[in-house]
C-alpha cells in the first residue's frame, strides 16, 4: 500500500499507545518532578504547622507535618510585641515608595533606550549595562551615602538601587518586541509626540511587564536587610528586623523588661515557636501576591530579557 495511505491510517498522536521505553521515561520524569515539588513544599508546610502548634511541641521537635497541640498562642504573642509593628510599617512604606520610584525610573530609561533611531543609543545602553559588571564596592558606596547625608534617613532605603539593569533590559525588550512598529509609525504620522506615545499608548499596552517588574522590585524591597543594617542605626527606621529575631535571638531580651517572671519562663520555652510565627508573618504577603503575577513570567517576558 502507498506510503501516504499508511501514514494517514496512523492513529492520532494522543491516542497512540506509549511504547515501553516511553512509559518508563514518563514514570521516571513524573516521579522525580513530584518528589522535588514535595521537597520544596514540605519545609514550608512544617514551618506553617509549627507556628500553629504549642511551644512545647515545637521545642521538643514533635511537629513533623501537621500542627501538634494546635494553638494560635504564637500569633497572639507576636501581636502583642508592638515593636514589630513599627518594623512592619516601615517595611511596607519602603516597599511601596521604593517600588514606585524603581518602576518609574526603569520604565523611563527602558522607553528611551527602546527608541530605535535615538542618537547615541548604543553608548547610553552601554552606560547602563556597565554598571551591572562593575561597581565601586562597599566602602565607596558607604562613603557616598554618608556624604549625601542619607545615613539614618528613609532615603537610603528608597533611592539607591533605582534601576536594576536586569529589570530594565526586560522592560526595554518588551517595549521593543511587543509594541508593533506600525503602531509607533502610525502615531508619528498622526503627530503624536514621544511623551504622549509613552503615556497614552505604550504604558497601557505594557501591563504585563509592568506587573512583573513591580513584583520583582517589591520583593527586593520587602526582603531587604543589608542596607538597613549598614546604613541605619535608628531602630525606629528599621524595616522588619527579622535578622535580630531569627538569627540573633534578640527579641526575648526586649520582651523581658515588660513581663513578670512566670511570663518570662513561658516565653523562653516559646522562642522557637515565636520564630516560626515571625517567619510566616514576614513571608505570607509576598506569597499571596506572586501567584497572580506568575502567569506573565514564563513565556514572553523572560525570553525577551535574554535576547536583549
Amino acid at each position: 500500500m502507498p506510503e501516504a495511505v499508511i501514514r494517514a491510517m496512523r492513529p492520532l498522536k494522543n491516542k497512540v499507545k506509549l511504547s515501553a521505553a516511553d512509559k518508563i521515561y514518563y514514570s521516571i520524569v513524573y516521579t522525580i518532578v513530584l518528589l522535588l515539588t514535595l521537597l520544596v513544599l514540605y519545609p514550608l508546610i512544617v514551618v506553617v504547622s509549627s507556628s500553629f502548634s504549642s511551644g512545647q511541641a515545637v521545642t521538643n521537635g514533635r511537629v513533623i507535618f501537621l500542627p501538634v497541640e494546635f494553638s494560635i498562642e504564637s500569633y497572639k504573642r507576636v501581636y502583642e510585641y508592638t515593636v514589630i509593628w513599627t518594623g512592619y510599617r516601615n517595611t511596607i512604606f519602603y516597599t511601596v515608595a521604593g517600588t514606585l520610584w524603581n518602576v518609574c525610573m526603569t520604565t523611563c530609561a527602558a522607553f528611551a533606550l527602546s527608541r530605535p533611531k535615538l542618537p547615541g543609543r548604543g553608548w547610553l545602553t552601554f552606560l547602563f549595562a556597565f554598571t551591572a559588571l562593575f561597581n565601586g564596592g562597599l566602602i565607596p558606596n558607604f562613603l557616598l551615602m554618608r556624604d549625601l547625608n542619607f545615613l539614618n534617613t528613609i532615603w537610603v532605603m528608597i533611592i539607591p538601587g533605582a534601576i536594576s539593569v536586569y529589570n530594565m533590559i526586560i522592560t526595554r525588550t518588551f517595549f521593543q518586541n511587543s509594541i508593533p512598529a506600525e503602531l509607533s509609525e502610525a502615531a508619528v504620522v498622526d503627530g503624536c509626540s514621544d511623551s504622549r506615545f509613552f503615556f497614552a499608548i505604550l504604558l497601557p499596552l505594557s501591563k504585563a511587564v509592568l506587573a512583573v517588574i513591580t513584583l520583582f522590585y517589591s520583593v527586593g524591597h520587602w526582603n531587604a536587610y543589608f542596607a538597613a543594617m549598614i546604613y541605619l542605626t535608628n531602630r525606629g527606621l528599621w524595616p522588619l528586623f527579622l535578622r535580630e529575631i531569627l538569627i540573633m535571638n534578640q527579641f526575648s531580651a526586649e520582651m523581658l523588661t515588660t513581663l513578670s517572671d512566670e511570663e518570662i519562663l513561658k516565653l523562653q520555652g516559646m522562642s522557637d515557636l515565636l520564630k516560626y510565627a515571625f517567619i510566616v508573618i514576614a513571608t505570607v504577603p509576598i506569597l499571596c501576591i506572586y501567584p497572580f503575577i506568575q502567569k506573565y513570567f514564563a513565556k514572553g517576558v523572560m525570553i525577551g530579557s535574554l535576547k536583549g
Partner: protein
Amino acid sequence: MKDPSLMTARLAGGRREKLWLRIRRHWQVYLFLLLPVVYLLIFAYYPMTGIQLAFKTFDYKKGIWGSPWVGFEQFTKFFNSHMFSRVVTNTLKISAYEIFAGFPIPIIFALLLNSFRHNKLKRVVQTVTYMPHFISVVVIVGMLFQIMNSRSGLYGTFSRLLTGTYPRDVLGSATAFVHLYVWSGIWQGFGWGSIIYLAALSSVNPELYEAAEIDGASRFQRVFHIDIPCLLPTAIIMLILRAGSVMTIGFEKVYLMQNALNLSASEVISTYVYKVGLTAMIPDYPYATAIGLFNSVINLVLIITVNELAKRYGNTSLW
C-alpha cells in the same frame, strides 16, 4: 572632534538628516533619560571614583580626594596577610561547589517539566517551586537554623528516629557549612532558575519533534537530541554570567550563617571587606576598598575571558 555638519544619517527613502536635527527631534526621549542618567552618574559612577582610595591611605582631615597616594601598598598588605588565602579559598570553594552542584539542576528540572503532559499539574508544580525564590534570605536562613537544629528541628527529630540519639550540632560545624550553604541555595533557586530554560524549550520548533517521532525516536531520545542542543546556547550564557561572579559570594547569606565556630570556612571576601571596612574598631577604608577592587577586577576579567572563550568555541556569547 568630528564636524557635526558632516555627521549625517540616512533615513528610509535615502534622505539624509543631520545628527543635530535628529537629537532635536527626539528631545522628549532624552528628557525621559535625564533622571535615570543623573541617578546613574551619582549612585553608580561617582562611587567608582572612590576606588582611588584603594591606592591611598586615608587621612580624615583631607578626605578621599586629598589623602596621600601609596600605590599598591594596600594590595600587597592584603596578599601577604594570613587572611588572604583563607578568604579567597573559601570564596572559590563555595562558588565552585555552587556551580557544579547547582548549575545543572535547573536545567534538568526544566527538561523534566517540559515533558509533562498534564498542564494543570505542571502549573501547580511551577507555582510551588517558584515560591522559595521570593522568600527573603533572612527567612531562609532562619528556617535553615530551625530545621537543622539538633534538638528541636526536623534534623534532630529524624536523626533520633533513625539512630536513637540526637545528632551533633551542624550549625556550628565548619565542615558542614559549605554543604548547608549550597544546598539551601539550590533548594531556594532551582525552580526559579528553570524558568529561562523552560522559555527556551518552548521555542523549539514542534516539527522537529514530529520528525523525530516519525523516525522512531523514543521520548527520551527526543529530549536528548532536540531539547538539550536547544538549551545549550542559553545554558552557556547563564554559565558565562555565573562565571563572572565566581569571586563574589553574596555577603548577605554568608553573614547570616556565620558564627564563631564555622568562621574558618565561612569567612569570604565580601564579609571580610565588611568587617575590615565598617565594623572593625578602627575601620580601614583603603584596605577594604582595595580588597573590594581586587574582587571586582577579577570578576570583570573573568566574565570577559569566559565570554571570549564562548564566542570562539561555542558561537554564542553575551556580547
